[in-house]
C-alpha cells in the first residue's frame, strides 16, 4: 500500500476555467492500490503490477487530464470541430482510467474461490451454474481480437447478469448500458511478461485472485439503483 501511495500521479486541486465558467474542475488521479505490487503473485507478477499501475494506468490518467484541458478550452471557445475531434482520446483515456480503477478492486490477494449469497444465486439463475458462467467469461475474454476487456455486467433494464466484451479501452457502461461488476484486462501488457502469448493460461489463473466481495458489492449497488 505504501508503495502505491508513492506513485500517485497528481494531487487533486480545483482548476477554474475562464470566461464565465466558474465550475472548478478536479484533475483525475491514480486511485490507491489496496495491496502491494507483489500481493497477487504467483498469479500476476510484481513486475507486471508495477508497470501496469505506474506506467499504463498513470498514462491514461495523465492523458485524460490533458484531453479534458483541451476539451475545456475548445468548449470555452465554441470550437465544435475540436471538441468532436477530442472524442476518441476522451473515450480511450477516460475508459482506460475507469476500467483500470475497477480492475484493481476486482482483484485481491485473498481472492479466489466462488461467490456466495445473492450474487451466486443470480449467477446460477442467469448462467445455469457457476461453472457455466466461468467457462463463458473465460472463453469470450480469451477470444477477444487485439486489445480489450472481458466483462461480467449487470443489465439495469432487465436485472440480469451478462457476459460481454469491449474493444480497446471502451468503457462498459457508456458503450453498452451494462453496469460493470467484474472485468478481465486482456491487453497484452496485462500478462505478456509472465505468460507471453499464452493468454488462456493468464485467464485461467486470474480466477484465483478474483475479489468476490467487491464484485458482490458492485452487484448489490447496481440492483439497488435499478429498484429506485
Amino acid at each position: 500500500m505504501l508503495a502505491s501511495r508513492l506513485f500517485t500521479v497528481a494531487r487533486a486541486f480545483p482548476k477554474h476555467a475562464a470566461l464565465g465558467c466558474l465550475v472548478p474542475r478536479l484533475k483525475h488521479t491514480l486511485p490507491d492500490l489496496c495491496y502491494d505490487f507483489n500481493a497477487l503473485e504467483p498469479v500476476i507478477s510484481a513486475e507486471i503490477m508495477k508497470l501496469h499501475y505506474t506506467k499504463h494506468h498513470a498514462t491514461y490518467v495523465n492523458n485524460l487530464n490533458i484531453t479534458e484541458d483541451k476539451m475545456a478550452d475548445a468548449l470555452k471557445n465554441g470550437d465544435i470541430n475540436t471538441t468532436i475531434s477530442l472524442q476518441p482520446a476522451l473515450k480511450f483515456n477516460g475508459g482506460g482510467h475507469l476500467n483500470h480503477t475497477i480492475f484493481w478492486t476486482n482483484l485481491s490477494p485473498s481472492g479466489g474461490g466462488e461467490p456466495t449469497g445473492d450474487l451466486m444465486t443470480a449467477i446460477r439463475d442467469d448462467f445455469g451454474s457457476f461453472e457455466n458462467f466461468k467457462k463463458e467469461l473465460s472463453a469470450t475474454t480469451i477470444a477477444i481480437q487485439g486489445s480489450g476487456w472481458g466483462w461480467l455486467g449487470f443489465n439495469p433494464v432487465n436485472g440480469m447478469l451478462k457476459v460481454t466484451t469491449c474493444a480497446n479501452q471502451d468503457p462498459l457502461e457508456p458503450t453498452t448500458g451494462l453496469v460493470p461488476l467484474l472485468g478481465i484486462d486482456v491487453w497484452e501488457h496485462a500478462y505478456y511478461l509472465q505468460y507471453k502469448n499464452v493468454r488462456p493460461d493468464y485467464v485461467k489463473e486470474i480466477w484465483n485472485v478474483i475479489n468476490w466481495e467487491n464484485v458482490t458489492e458492485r452487484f448489490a449497488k447496481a440492483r439497488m439503483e435499478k429498484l429506485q
Partner: protein
Amino acid sequence: MHPVCILLVLLSCFSVVSSGTSAPYHGIEKYAEEYPLPKLPYAYDGLEPHIDRATVKVHHTGHHAAYTTNMNAALKEWKNDDTSDSLSRSSLLRILQNLQDIPVQYRTKLRNNVGGYVNHALYWGCLSGNQGNRTPTGTVAADINTVFGSFSAFREKFTAEAASLFGSGYVWLSRQSSTSATAKPPLVITTSQNQDTPISEGLRPVLVIDVWEHAYYLKHQNLRAKHIGDWWALVDWEAVNVLDGWWAKMDVKVHEDL
C-alpha cells in the same frame, strides 16, 4: 524499353543479389491446400541489437504460428462446408480483397487469421539485419520524396501515426491500386486495427510496422516509441523496393490477362 520491362529486369537483379531465400510473403498470391509458417529471412538473433532474439522467436513461433494454424483450420472448414465456393479455393490475397464474399460464419475468423498470417509475413519481409540497406533508395524513396516532400517529413508522419495508434494494429505505407500499366500509383500512409490490412481496401503495402504490444513488450514494456526507433533501424530499403516490384509484377499479369 517498356518501363515495366525495366522494372522486371531490376527485380531479377535484386533476386540475384539477395540471399536466395524467398521473401516471407511469397505464396500469398497463389492458392495452396495448406500454408506453412513462412521462414524468416534471418535468424532469431538476426535483428539484434534492435529487436531482441526472445521477441522475434515468440512473435514468430507463438503469434505468427498461431495465426497460421488457425487460418489453415478455418480454410479447411470452409472448403469442406461448400465444395462449390471458388473463393475458398483462391489465394490468400484474393480472400483478403473479397472479405465481404466470405460466408458470414467464417468471415471474422478468416479476416483475423488470414490477416494475421499475411500482415506478419509482410512485417518480417521489410526488415533485415543488413546494415548496407539502411538508406532509403530506389523507386520507393523517390516516390516518398514526391508525395511527402522529403524523407524526414514522411518519417515524422509515419512515426506519429505509429505512436498514437490506440490499441493493437499496424501502420502502413502502400501504393493505391494500379490503374495504368506504366505509371507507378501514389504512396499513402494508412493505419489498421487488429489484423485488418490495407490489402482489403485494394491497396498494395510496401512497408509496415507492427505496434501490437507483443511486438515490443518484452524489451520495451510500455515504451512504444523506443520500438518505433528500433524498427526504423531495421527497415531494409532494398527489401521494400523488392516488395514494391513484386506487386508491380502481379499488376502486369493482371493487365496482360485483360
